[in-house]
């Protein structure tokens, strides 16, 4: 029988207000095996931990139950503390009486009864615990970054600078992501290309970085320190090494009717194309949907004109297999589709555009060479109306219930840039709230209103319609309590942003958790914001939630530092809660082998001595370095020969027993 100590935490008033601590301590004291029970205001504080350490020594405790917050919060803390006092860290169990009791049950009597039941379950479990020793696993010193936008590039550069090899997988033919499409950045108004393209070049030329563009990660197996990824490199139909990016093919291609994705479909591109002038790699790609050769087996003109002989219509998708120690998700975002907001007339009127389209219209490298003009007829606009929160903060099926965070600032930027360049244009912005939390952000917004004469109207727009060749914007002005109608030449919608559609698949492949909006979940909202709860998976940029460029870059760097912290280690301590097969019981039936997702179970012909009978048997053997401790095998095993350390059949049944006792 173990000597068990029970420590009940008040968590200030978090627990003590709705659980009778004295009763819990008293109830714990009479449980079999409990030799010591006490309580303290903050068990997790240094003073609280000291109480535990002293008690372990004084009462010769070999099992400890902490009754406090969720084990997901402080289990590691108390295990470390146990180690400090010479106790095996796995002789500690946590009874979660905060999240599962005090915070949800307001009635103190009810809460106390439940707390006692959970404490008894933890005592029952710990009395069957056995000391466990962690093993070690190796670390592959290479990182994978999924996504080649500013987030992924910054993370990759930081990791590469620390001396580790990084692969960046980008699904599009070029790196750069959304930022490459942007004209200027807030609040400094420096040109996006001027700050992004040097980073793209840095990444391309860095000896530790390999850019794998026009590729997607197809599957990932393994675990922290040794992931195995399969990457599908899509056929470009252009030899990446041979192509010089001269652009002759683009000029000669007779199929020029495909919408130019990079310019948000505002103009067309040929079937063989380089996405934009600063694309990296600066090589062409053939769109198999529209290429005449690939669709109808005619033409092939590009092949004839290419001096570098880079065009290769026989190219096939290629699968690349690589091993990595860490994986960073940087899948980014896309603006939502706004055609569902039919009252705003996006589908009906060419002059109702999204903000990203406006970026392209104002970009010197865009379809109009940076000249702001109406999409419908190319004429100069005189009145432009911006509508914010299109789809943001919207609980209905057509929108997103969160704030997209960046729209207030980029709309202000657009308004300011237009007023600066074309003082004759009247600019009006409809807003719900202006959110400018950030260094120099509110000042920027005030400048737009005060110095640049942008009109801000608090209210939303009810409809946009055409009348006498003009657009009319009907909205409410909540300050003057009026419904107003404004004539406009152009209307710009600040569309909400959403997680890139690839995020869900990537998260599922990495078994990283994802929230209801398809943003990846961080391990801890405050303390571990760039790590996924799945070890070895890190988050960079908007895949975790809306953020602007400075925040993205900061988070990208933080993710890199976490990756570096992982890759510098030569060995990782493995979870000792692994499956184990009992030689005397195993029948060698292979059920566990068939079910193991990690290939951690193998078979050995082994000589056993079973009560005097010596024979060679086929036995399951678990490789503790590969086993991740899911326990699926233990259920597949009919005889119960396979069990899971730390969550043994007997331990779980003891918990069941304690909980069900009436």
């Amino acid at each position, binding site marked *: 029988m173990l000597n068990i100590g029970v420590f009940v935490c008040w968590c200030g008033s978090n627990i003590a207000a709705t659980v009778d601590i004295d009763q819990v301590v008293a109830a714990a004291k009479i449980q079999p095996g409990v030799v010591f029970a006490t309580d303290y205001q903050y068990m997790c504080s240094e003073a609280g931990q000291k109480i535990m350490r002293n008690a372990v020594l004084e009462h010769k405790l070999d099992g400890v139950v902490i009754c406090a917050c969720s084990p997901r919060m402080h289990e590691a803390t108390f295990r470390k503390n146990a180690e400090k006092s010479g106790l095996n860290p796995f002789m500690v169990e946590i009874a979660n009486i905060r999240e599962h009791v005090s915070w949800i049950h307001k009635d103190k009597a009810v809460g106390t009864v439940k707390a006692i039941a959970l404490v008894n379950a933890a005592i029952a479990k710990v009395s069957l615990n056995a000391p466990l020793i962690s093993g070690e696993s190796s670390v592959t010193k290479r990182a994978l970054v999924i996504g080649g936008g500013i987030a992924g590039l910054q993370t990759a550069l930081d990791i590469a600078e620390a001396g580790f090899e990084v692969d960046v997988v980008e699904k599009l033919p070029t790196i750069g992501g959304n930022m490459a499409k942007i004209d200027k950045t807030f609040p400094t108004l420096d040109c996006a290309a001027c700050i992004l393209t040097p980073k793209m070049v840095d990444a391309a030329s860095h000896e530790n970085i390999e850019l794998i563009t026009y590729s997607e990660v197809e599957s990932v197996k393994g675990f922290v320190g040794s992931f195995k990824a399969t990457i599908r490199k899509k056929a470009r139909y252009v030899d990446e090494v041979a192509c010089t990016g001269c652009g002759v093919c683009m000029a000669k291609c007779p199929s020029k009717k495909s919408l130019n994705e990079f310019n948000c479909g505002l103009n067309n591109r040929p079937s063989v194309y380089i996405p934009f002038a600063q694309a990296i790699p600066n090589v062409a790609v053939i769109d198999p949907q529209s290429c005449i050769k690939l669709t109808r087996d005619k033409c092939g003109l590009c092949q004839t004109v290419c001096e570098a002989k880079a065009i290769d219509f026989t190219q096939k998708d290629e699968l690349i297999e690589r091993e990595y120690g860490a994986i960073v998700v940087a899948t980014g975002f896309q603006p939502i589709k706004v055609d569902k907001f039919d009252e705003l007339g996006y589908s009906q009127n060419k002059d109702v555009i999204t903000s990203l389209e406006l970026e392209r219209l104002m970009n010197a490298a865009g379809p109009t060479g940076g000249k702001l003009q109406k999409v419908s007829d190319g004429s100069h606009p005189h009145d432009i109306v911006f509508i914010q929160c299109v789809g943001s903060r919207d609980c209905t099926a057509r929108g997103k219930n969160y704030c997209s965070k960046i729209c207030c600032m980029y709309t202000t930027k657009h308004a300011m840039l237009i007023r600066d360049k074309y003082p004759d244009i009247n600019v009006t912005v409809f807003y719900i709230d202006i959110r400018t939390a950030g260094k120099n952000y509110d000042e920027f917004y005030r400048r737009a209103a005060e110095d640049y004469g942008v009109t801000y109207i608090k209210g939303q727009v009810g409809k946009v319609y055409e009348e006498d060749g003009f657009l009319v914007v009907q909205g409410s002005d909540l300050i003057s309590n009026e419904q107003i109608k404004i004539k406009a030449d152009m209307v710009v919608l600040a569309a909400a942003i959403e997680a890139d559609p690839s995020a869900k698949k990537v998260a599922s492949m990495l078994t990283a958790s994802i929230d209801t909006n398809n943003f990846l979940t961080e391990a801890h909202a405050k303390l571990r914001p760039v790590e996924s709860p799945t070890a070895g998976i890190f988050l960079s940029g908007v895949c975790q939630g809306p953020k602007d460029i400075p925040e993205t870059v900061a988070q990208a760097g933080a993710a890199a530092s976490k990756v570096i912290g992982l890759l510098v280690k030569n060995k990782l301590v493995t979870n000792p809660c692994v499956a184990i097969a*009992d030689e*005397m*019981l*195993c*029948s*060698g*039936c*292979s*059920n566990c082998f*068939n*079910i193991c997702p990690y290939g951690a179970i193998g*078979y050995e012909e082994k000589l056993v001595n079973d009560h005097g009978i010596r*024979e*060679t*048997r*086929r036995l399951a053997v678990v490789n503790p370095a590969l086993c991740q401790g899911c326990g699926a095998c233990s259920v*597949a095993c*009919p*005889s*119960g*020969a396979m*069990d899971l350390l730390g969550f*043994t*059949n*007997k331990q*779980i*049944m*003891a918990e069941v027993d304690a909980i069900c006792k009436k």
Partner: protein
Amino acid sequence: MQGLEKKIKDRASELLQSGAVDGIIGWEKGQFEYDPTPAVFTKETGLDNLCYNNFCGANLSKYLVGKITSDKKFAVLLKPCDTYSMNQLITEHRVNRSNIYIIGIGCNGHLNVEKIKAQGISGITAVSASDDHVNISTIYGDSKLAKKEILLGKCEVCRGNVHVIFDELIGEELQTPKPDDRFEMVAKLEAMTAEERFKFWQGELSRCIRCNACRNACPACTCRVCVFDNGRSGIEAKANASEFEEQMFHIIRAFHVAARCTDCGECSRVCPENIPLHLLNRKYVKDINEFYGDYQAGDIAEQRNPLVNFGDDDIEPTTVSDKGGQK
């Protein structure tokens, strides 16, 4: 049948004589016509007692499990349905295929002596069967019964005369019985109200004396140590205060053999209390067919059974508990 028995004996004799095998697993004559018992024949002289008659229903495949570590080679006599069990045992590495010589033998259905006795017939001296009828000689005279009435439960739903695994065949031309719908009774139970089902099973299972005959005869129950005897499982309860094992034995057993049970019917055949235990297993066969597509345990060796497999859009347990499994 007489002719077939002779052929088997001759072949067994050859195999033993030539040293090709060290033993033959077959049936040994009992005191009466109707009580042959499984036996291992290692000497030619013993082969006189080898028999193959209308009462050799026992599935011999499981007898190989105990021989897995033996360096001797055994021949085993398997009826078509028994070969499914053999395949399943091979899949689960519970037998050593290289030490087994499988003689597939023909079958035209085996009889249940209890059913004959239930017709008021006693003092049986000889039994001969055609495809439809059975002539029974007794010390009180002869009677003739329709074969269908007195078949073993498993033969009523015979799966046909194909041996799915064998090294040689003897008498495979025999005509197996025409099967009834094997899920008829399961479906009938399913159609009852929950209360009726509960009463049915309470009536049946309350007779259980926990003799473990079902477990011991079952070719799928081959664990070296049964979970109910495993001190680490947390559910062993021998002579303890807990009744868990007693109450839950049949549910757990059915679950443990689910997707591995070939529906050979041994459990019900051997049950001294005549509890229709095969219905539990057959319910799982039916469920698995309906939920995850048709599956027959043991029809191919080395296949992954549906419980160590999955599909992306499997039926939800919620659907099963809400609608009773109607997808």
